[in-house]
Structures are given as structure tokens and as C-alpha cells.
């Protein structure tokens, strides 16, 4: 199950953080997302491979904590997408697929002329889309 998704701007400022849990753990998830930025930075600054991996947006598993797995994705505009999940065996393809959809939704949201770049995404439609994507992710991995 996806616990949290986040969009973080290129100055590492949070643009959108949404948790999908019942519990009141927003603070914890904020911390996890915030910490994972360090790993993103690390990945970006020391790319392990060059060549075909150069333009890879998917950063893979950022770091496993006790209960969560954190995945990252970096767009060309240095906007980061972070996914926190409780599923311990997640297929990479699923995550890639999720990020692709998420990226599309994000692009649509920021293409809105009323969206101020660098400000938090407040679009309701974006939130709805994200929650459907998150739900479908759960279904895919279950089936």
C-alpha cells in the first residue's frame, strides 16, 4: 500500500505531500520524505552509471527503513517525486509505471495557467488524480 506521495520542487521545497493512511503520521512522513531528499541528492551527484542511465528519471529505491520503502523519481526540471510504500516486495516496473502516470498528472497540474511555479500545488483535480493513481497502484501489485 502506498503510504505517501510527495512532489518536491527543485529547491527542495515541498510542493505537494499527501499521505494515504488513517493514522496521524503526517509528521513522520514529512520527515521520511525530507530525509530521502538527501539520498536523491546523493544519487544525482554521484551517478553510478553513465550512458543509458544518464537521462533516467527513475531513481529507484532510495532507502529502506524498518517499515517503509522509499522510491524516488527526478524530472528534467529537477522536481522530485517521492513514493513511500509499506509493500516490502514491490516490482520496479510497477513503481516506474506509477511514476510515469504521476508525472503526467503533475505536468497537467502545473500547466494550469493559474498555477504559480514554485508554489504549492493546490489543484483539487490533481489531488483526485493522484489518489486514483495511488489506488490503482495498490490494485496492480495485489493482482
Amino acid at each position, binding site marked *: 500500500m502506498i503510504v505517501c506521495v510527495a512532489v518536491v520542487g527543485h529547491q527542495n521545497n515541498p510542493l505537494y505531500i499527501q499521505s494515504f493512511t488513517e493514522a496521524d503520521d503526517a509528521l513522520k512522513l514529512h520527515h521520511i520524505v*525530507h*530525509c530521502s531528499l538527501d539520498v536523491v541528492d*546523493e544519487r544525482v551527484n554521484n551517478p553510478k552509471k553513465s550512458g543509458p542511465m544518464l537521462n533516467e528519471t527513475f531513481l529507484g529505491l532510495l532507502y529502506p527503513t524498518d517499515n517503509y520503502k522509499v522510491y524516488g523519481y527526478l524530472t528534467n526540471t529537477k522536481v522530485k517525486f517521492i513514493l513511500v510504500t509499506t509493500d516490502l516486495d514491490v516490482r520496479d516496473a510497477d513503481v516506474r509505471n506509477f511514476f510515469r502516470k504521476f508525472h503526467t498528472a503533475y505536468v497537467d497540474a502545473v500547466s494550469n495557467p493559474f498555477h504559480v511555479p514554485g508554489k504549492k500545488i493546490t489543484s483539487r483535480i490533481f489531488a483526485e488524480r493522484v489518489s486514483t493513481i495511488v489506488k490503482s497502484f495498490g490494485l496492480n501489485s495485489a493482482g
Partner: protein
Amino acid sequence: MDPAKTPLGQMLLDEITPVVMVLSTPLVEEACFKNGFSFLQMLTPFCSFHNIDVPVRTASDQPYRLQKFKLRLFYASDVRKPDLEVAKEHLKQVITEAGEKELSELSLDAPEISHVLESSESGNTPSWLQFFNKELIRVVSFSDHEAFDHPVACLLAVSSKDEQPINRFVDLFNTNKLPSLLNDGVMDPKILKHYLLVHDNQDGPVDRATKILAEMRGTFGTSDCALLCMNSSSDSPVKHEDNPWASYNSNVSPGQDLGCFLNIDDVNEIKDLMQDLSSKHIIPSMEQKIRVLNQQVSATRKGFRNQIKNLWWRKGKEDGVDSINGPMYTFSSTESQIRVLGDYAFMLRDYELALSNYRLISTDYKLDKAWKRYAAVQEMMGLAYFMSDQSRKEAEYCMENAFNTYLKLGSSGQQNATRCGLWWVEMLKTRDQYKEAAPVYFRICGEDILHSAVMLEQASYCYLMSKPSMLRKFGFHLVLSGDRYNKCDQVKHAIRTYRSVLSVFKGTTWSYIKDHVHFHIGQWYASLGMCDVAVKHMLEILACGHQSKKTQELFLGDFLQIVQKTGRTFEVSKLQLPVINISSLKVIFEDHRTFGSLSAANTKEGLWHSLEEEMLPSFSAAKTNWLELQSKLISKNYRDSNVCVEGEAVKVNIEFSNPLQISIPVSGVTLICKHSPSTSEVTSGTKNDIDGKCEELTTSRDLSSDNSSFLVSEVDFLLGGGETTMVQLSVTPRDEGTLEILGVRWKLSGTIVGFHNFEFSHVKKNTAKGRRKGKRSPNENFKFLVTKSIPKLQGSIHPFPEKTYAGDLRHLVLELRNSSEIPVKNLKMKISHPRFLNIGSPENIKSEFPSCLMKIDSVPSGANANPSNMSDTVFLFPEGTSVQGVTPFSWPLWFRAAVPGDISLYISIYYEMGDISSVIRYRTLRLQYNLQVLPSLDVSFQISPSPLRLREFLVRMDVVNKTASESFQVNQLSSIGSDWEISLLQPPETIFPSLSLMAGQAISCFLTLKNCRRILTFEDTGSSISMPIRSDIKLVPQGSEDPVYNMSSEPLVNFHHYERQQQEFSHEPLGDLNTVDFVLISRPLQSDTNASFSDPPHVMSHHACHCSTASTGPISWLVDGPRTLHHDFSASFCEINLKMHLYNSSGATAFVRINTLDYTVTGGQLNPLSVVQSVTPSDNQAGWHDITPVNEVKVTSNVTGSQPGKSLSLGSVSPYIWSGSSSTNVHLEPMSSAQIPLQICVFSPGIYDLSNYVLHWNLLPEDRGGQDETRQPSGKCLGYTYYLTVLQST
């Protein structure tokens, strides 16, 4: 890098050193206590040697020299495993003490992150952490499976005062009192013993001691005995420069002088003793032991045979007891011996030897499943690898292996794991692998929350120091650590860690985390009673609009509670709650400009400025009078300040908004002002007495509101969740001087006072000379010059409608009041929209509305009003008008809603002071009214010339009721001026069957319009017509009581004037005499739905101006002649005389030339075919016949007619011929008519269209300015159809 110089190397050299067990008699201790320490403490400083320079030869034949060496001294009672609980308690105390120490720095501000980075680079992590780590490692000392803590020697000390010292020595090494390590067979009880006789010089001469020493030497051997004389300085206490004991004794009170009875000789003696002990006894004995053990080990274990044997033997033991610690190994077992050999070699820094032995033993322990021992050996292997600077990978692998093995043991291995982890971390740190070190710290965290807090904190520093530094993980681990500290009631540590976190999040937008951190710091400070700091942190989280409502309530509640706890009122600059929208700040003050309402004050200055331009004294005059005065009155500093009047409030509009979801009470919102009185001379003096000297007594007074020099208003309000309120604050100066508005203050929830200083960062200097610039610049300047009280007019217009229908005509009254005693005079007034508002004459004030509009027969119409003087100029109230005292001054106004829409009317009234001794000599009162005008009737006219008469027109009037619900009664239609006469074609009853126009209804009615202007003809120029003409028609049935409205009554004619002016722009030519203006008067019917609107009698007027009558040009003409004619064509052709009436309706003289053409120029003449058709049937000869078929034919012929010359060649002659002159020139005076005779000849019967002529006209240019340019100077008109029927007469 030399491993020994690294922190880990230092630590190992300190910690893994030979242990000397100390046994002493109470008398020895007594002697030492005189100096403030125990025997052991006395010796400790001299146990570490930096330059001992001892040659060592271990297993190999090659000797090497030791430079640094250290002994660890322990009392025999301490040589045992520390009690876990006691150790824990001790560690806790260490932490608490550190916390106390840190507290002093706590009140400082949170460090900048760059600062933190810098300090971390210099290794400046909290120093107590190192100390704590050392203590933590000591928890596992003296374990039975590690040999380096086992004492290598025993120091027995007996005082010379002791009776039978020799026996005392023997007693001391009594097995009952020895530590369990020696007793239960873990280590060899036969250890090196050193006998020390301690002699206190204060007790007497040293003779007895030497005697005893000799006796000792006899008993224990010469080399193992020594004498130590101490306390030699009996008289004066010795002050030691850099006291060697101070750094070893932490819990010493500052007044105590350690070692005060030991003189230099004593100290040197102790030094020598220890050096002797280590270099001549301990090290040689260790060498000896190493060599012995090495031989044994080689004999039993080295070599292929031994290895096979060993393997086989271990295999056989496999099904033995499988306890956690594996089998018990005594000191005599080979395993223990190897371990001891390894440890001794390690301590003597023969790491190669140590390593080989550790390797040997580790496989054995592994096979024996003695995991704890195995782990310990692995650990030592790692360290040995490290110290010998061999393979790093191996070292780390060993450490990890050891660590994991310890962890597998569960709780019993926990402490060892911790130690191992710490060493491992140090090893990683040494190699700058901070990033790898951090997770190890994280893994060290055991069940003990306090320890894990410390470990997490250290982990965070590792993240900070890793390259590049991982600040976010640093922050996160600090938060985790702080949380754990807090759980263990180590609040001070918690605060410290959280405060470091702040530096990470400073300036970021991770508000959730930021809020959490600030909130907890605040709470913890409050729990420590440091409420001031707590409040400071809590202030940061007040504007937490992003948090949930519950959290907001919690934050605010806690905050207020803490503030209350402090028991005093805080004054907080830039309190975040409520949020002040500083851009909304607006200062409204009245100098020479006064405002009737708030909306008037909000209007742009430029608008008022343009309105008042004509009214105010001219620029230069204002400059010399006003500014000159001003410049002398006030010092240069205040030249730029604004002027306000004593007793009149300066208002400040400011917006407060609440970012939270909960409502917050805000009370006591006031302005912070400063008033400084200036010398009284300033305002009392007349214009002449000023000598340019002016002292400013800028004594800033108390800012409280009970200051007598000004009054400030106080506003309380409750801001609901997410609300925004505009608040108007005011300050009323009561004394002359200078008033400065500094800021605004308010009280939140009755507990905390916030204030916000208006910043002057963008003050525009008001450099405009003489006159004030726009309103903006003074707005940003919050300094005011307060002048003496002067009168201020207040005005209102009543009853002013807020909502009305277009065309509504009303009678209003302007009322002016002057509350002061000083009269004002020279009143002038200007209105922005004279189309809407008109100034009446004083007699109107009593007249009744709307009857004053009625035409009264006795009064000659058109006499009293002269619209020409109603230009846009200023209205001057009559001479001598002055307003004073309680009685208001009234003046009538006429109002007419001219066009639909939202309209703002601006009225400015100028007045001068009766008593001119003030800086301000005149003032203006600015009134602004907004009104909404709804569309009502839409009237349009269409005029076409009448075909029958030359100067008559047919008019169609369309009236549409555009309202939603109102119905109107259309009363009267009037044409304006005396030139036009109108009459209805139908009786009004047929037009308005229901007598009214319902909502949405449209009607049309037809009228004739006749131009009655005097005509100049060639024939009779002298005759004049002065008949009264009917320019008004009533559209209500005859006999109804409604009187006729007088179009020339004052308001109507004035409004019509403006209406004309307005509509001029949308219509083309100015001054065209061929236009007519109509005024439609209607009245709303009394309806129940909208009683308020139709309650007073209303009249509505709709003006349609410049309805043009001339459609073709300035010249109109009419061909007059017979229409039907009988003629006997058998006799002759027929000659017909016609007359053309020409009329010049323009204001210029016109030349007209009429050209008759015998050939057709365009289509429109009759088709010859139709002529034949219409003529040939004989039965149709009897007069009139239907012309329609001809028309139909004509329609078809139009197709050909549009291509002139195709169907008609020039050769084809038209059926009739113009006889007479083919071209006639006429000179037409303006407004005159002329007649021209025309003649045609017809040769056969038929119907003829006499349009075969062209009229050229040419207007003489006039000296009328630029308007003529737009007009056609000349033109050409084709003749219009005139059908003539000629019949064969019988």
C-alpha cells in the same frame, strides 16, 4: 596516517593497557587523604609515560622500543565486572551533568547552519559525547573472556606506621580479598607483585622506614621492594603550577589544593617509582610471559600435526554442552593462553603477533560455538588490523562480524556490541567514512532509550560531517534523538538537539516539521521554567494555517498558557497573529482637503485634483501664500510632513487577516503615535512675526493612550477562521506640534501584545513644490504637522437615491454644516457630472416637486433659464454666503439619472476660513456618492422626410420599457426649441390602450414633425412668422388632469443642455440645424411591488438629441406639378410645366445647379416596353391604372439598370424631352427656399418617371471653425421618381 595518532588509536592506547591491581592499608590511604586524594589517585597522573624508551623483545628476536606507555591502576575491589545497574545510573548521571553544562548556552540563538558545519569540521561535536563513549566502553571491562583487563601486576602498599609491616604485606595479598578473576581460575593467580612501603614524613624521620625496607628486601627479594616518602613539606602547603592531579579528579572542589603536602621531591619520587615499576618490572615480566606462552603455543598448536590433532579433538567435543558462553576455559587451557598471549602482544604493540594468535584462537572458538569469545576475538582482530594499518577491508569485516555476533547473543551481548560498535564507528570515522558510520550508530541503539538517544545524536553528527553533508538526515536523527532524550526526562538535551535541528530547517518551507520542532522546544523550555525563550519559539508557530484545526487549537492554547505562566505581558514585534496586510495600509488625513465620506477619501487624488483645479486659488498664489508661510513656520525637517488639524482625526485603514481556522479575539488595536509639541509661536504668530527661528522640542512622550496630546481610538474584534477585516484606526491630535504614527499595536486573546512598526523604507520624499503630489506620497509618510483647529464643513445631500431608474428626475438638497464658531465664506462648488446633478437656484428650495415643472400659463415660458451659463465652470455661491453655527445651510440640487450604470458622483466644495490666521487658509470638502442607475425606457426616433410637403417629416418613435417590473405612464413628448412643431398621427388612446407601458413592452407611434423656422425665399424675404407653435404633445388621453411639463423650466432645460452636449459626440455634425431634440416625459405608475421607488412623485425625462432630419444633404427639393394629364396627342405633343421647390437647410449659402438629361443616366427610368404595354390597351385609357405591374417590371429591369448603358444606347431617346433650359443655376441663401420652373415635352401617352435630372450643390465655405471640414462641401443628387401619367384625351 599513523593509526596510533588517530582518535581510535589514542583510545586503544589508553584503554587497552596493562592493569595494575593496587592493594593498600588504611594508613596509607590516611596519609594520602591529607593531600585530598586516595593512594591510587596520587599515583594515577604518573602512570602514563610519553617517553619511556624501553626496549621490548617479544616472540621475534628483533627488539623494538616503546616510547609511550600507560598503566591502569585499579584497587583490587574494583577489579571485577561493573554492576550493570550502577553503570547505567552512572551513565545517566554523566548525561545529566552534560545537560546541565550545556544549559548555559541554551538561551543563545539557534546557530546558523553554516556555523554548525564549520564547527563540525573542526571536530567540535559536543565533547561530553567522547567521555560518554569511554564510560560506555568501561561498562564491559574486566570480563572473563578478555585478557587485557586482567591485572598484570599487583602493587601492595603498606605504611611505615603500620605495625608489623611485613605481615601486613602478606595479609594484603590474602586470597579471600582478591577479585574473583584470580580466584575462580579465569586468570593465573601467580602475578607479579611489587611491595611498596609508604612513609609519611610528617610522622617522623625516615629511619624506621628504611629499617622496614631492609627487612622487606630480605623477605620479598630486593628488586620487588620500594620505599615512597611523601608529605615532605610539613610547614607550608605547596602550590603546584599546573597541578597534575587536577585533570584526573573531576569531583574536586575548587578551594581544595590537591597534593598540598607533596613537594617537588615527593612528586619526583612518585614519578621515578612508577617509571621503575613499568620499565623494570611490568614490561619485562610481560615480555617474559609472552615468550613463555609463545613457546607453549608453538609446541601445542603450531605445525601441521598439531592442527590436525586440534581439529580432530574439537570434532569429538561437538556433542558436548552447548551453553551460550561455550565451554569454560581456565587460565591453563590452551585457548586462554593463546588469548592472553594475543592480548599481551597487543598491549606491547606487537600487533603481528597478536593478530596471528587471535586468528588461531578465533577458529577454535567458532568450532566450540563460544560465540561471545569468538566475537571478542574478532573484535580484537579488527583492532589489530587497524593498529597495524593493514587491510581496511579485513578490519571492517572483523568489526562487523564481531558486532553481528554480539547482537546475536541477545541482551547478554548488548554491552559488548555497543563497545564493538563504538570502536567500529571510530574506525570508520578515522577513514572519513562518516556516511557508513552513521548507520552503525543507529544499530548500536539498543533497548535503552537514553543510550539510543545519545547514539542517534552521534549518528546525526556523522551525517553532518559526511561529504557532502547530509543535512536532512542530520536533522532527522537529531529529532529522533531529541525525542528520546525527552522520553528520558533529559529535557535539556532534547532542547539542545532540537535547536540544532532548527538550523537545518531555517528558511525552508517544510512547515510541518518546523512547527513540530518549534512547538516542542517551546514546550520544553516552558517545562524548565524558561518561559521567555519558550514564548519566542512558540511565536514561530502561531501562523500555522496549514495545520489541522486541532493542532492549531493546541498550538494557540499552549502558547497562551505559557504566556500566562510568565505572568507578564509580552510585547512582540511583528506578532504573526493576526497577519497584517501592510500593503493595505492607508492613511487618511485632512489638511486642506476634507472628505465627506470614506469612499470619497479612497478616490484617487488626481480625480479630485482635476475637479478642483479651477476652484482653488491659482498655483502661483498658493505658492506664495501657503508655502511661504509654511517654509517659515516649520523647520526644514518637517517640510515634507503632512499637515493635519488639531482635533481632527487622522485615520489609518489596515487589514487584519486570520490564517487559522479557529477564531481569535483581538482587542485594543491602537496606533502607536508620537507627539512632540513645537513652540507655540508657530501657529499663534501672524505672518509677519516669524524670524525663521523655530525650536523643536522633540520630547517623545509616553506612548500610552492616556497621553493628553493625542487621542487614539481602540478597536476590538473577533477574527473568525480565515477571515479578513479592514480596521479603521484613528488618532486625534489635541495639541499643536508634530504627530508621528509609528505603528500599530494589538492584544491577542488578552494576553500578548503585538506591535508592528510601519517601516519607512520606501518613503518618497515629497519634492513637488508648492502643491502636494498625489495622495500616495503623503500616505507613506507618517509624520504630521498639527495645526490649530480650524473650521471644517460637513456636507450631505439628501435624500440621495442609491438606486434609481434612468431618466429619474429628482429634487435634492445639499446641506452644509459648520460645527465651529468661525464662519467660512467664499463658498464654491463643482460637480463632476453635471449631467446627473445640477445646481438649482435658491427659490427652488421651497418649491414643490414636480409641480414646479408644470407649465403655468401666466408665466411666459422660456424666460427664467439660460442654459448657456451652465457650462462646466465652478458654481459660486452668492456673495455673503457664510456657514456658521448650528443652522445648516441648504441649497437645492436637481438630480437626473442620465444613463444606466454604476455612477460615482464627485462634488467638491471650496471654502475659506473667516479668520485667516492659520496655515491652512482654505479647505475643500469632497463628497462622493455612488448610485446605481437601472435602465428604464429606451426611446428612439426615426425621421424620414414627408413626400408630400417640403419641410415636413414623418417621425416614428419607439419606446421600449426595459425594466423588470416597473410600468410607466408616458406623459408627454416635446420637441425642444421653437422651430419644430410636432403632432400625433393617432390619438394617444390608440397608442396606449392601457395608458401605461408595462415591463418589457414596446410601442411605436407616429408623429409628424414640421419645421416652422422662418424661411427666406426669393420671393418674400420680409414676411415673418411669429405664431406660437405646438412643441409639446400630451400622450395621455385628452382631459386627463396631468398638466403639461414645461420644457424650459430650470432643471429640464439644464439637463437637456448637458444631454445635448453629451450626445453631440456620438452624432455627427455640430450645429446642424436640421436636427431636432425630443424629450419624453414619463412617470412611473404606482406599483405595489416597489413602493419605495415610486413613493414620492417622480418624473422621468428621456432626451433624444440631434435626431437628424436631413438624410441626403443640406438641400431638399420637391418637384411640384400635375400628376395626371389628358392630352390630345393627335393635335400636338404635350408640354407640361413643372415647378421645383428647393430648400437649403444648411447654415451656409448654397449654389445649386439642376441639369436635366435627355438620356438616361441610371436605371430607374421606365422600360420602354412597359410604356407600350400600358399604353396600347384601349380599355385602359380611362384614367388611373394600377401601377403595380409596372413596378414589378421595374424590379426586373433593375437588373439591367444596374448596368447602365447596356440596354440603352445614347442614341435611344427617352420618351420625353426636357424643354427649357437644360441647366439652371440657383443661389440659395441659408435657410431659404427657391422655385425653379421646369418644362417637359411628351409625345405619346404613358406613365413617365421624371427623375432624369441631376442636382449639383455646392456649399460656400463658412468661417465656422474646424467643424466644416467634416461636412460635405458639395454633392450631387439624382432626381427622385416623380410619376406623371399622360393620357390621350378623347
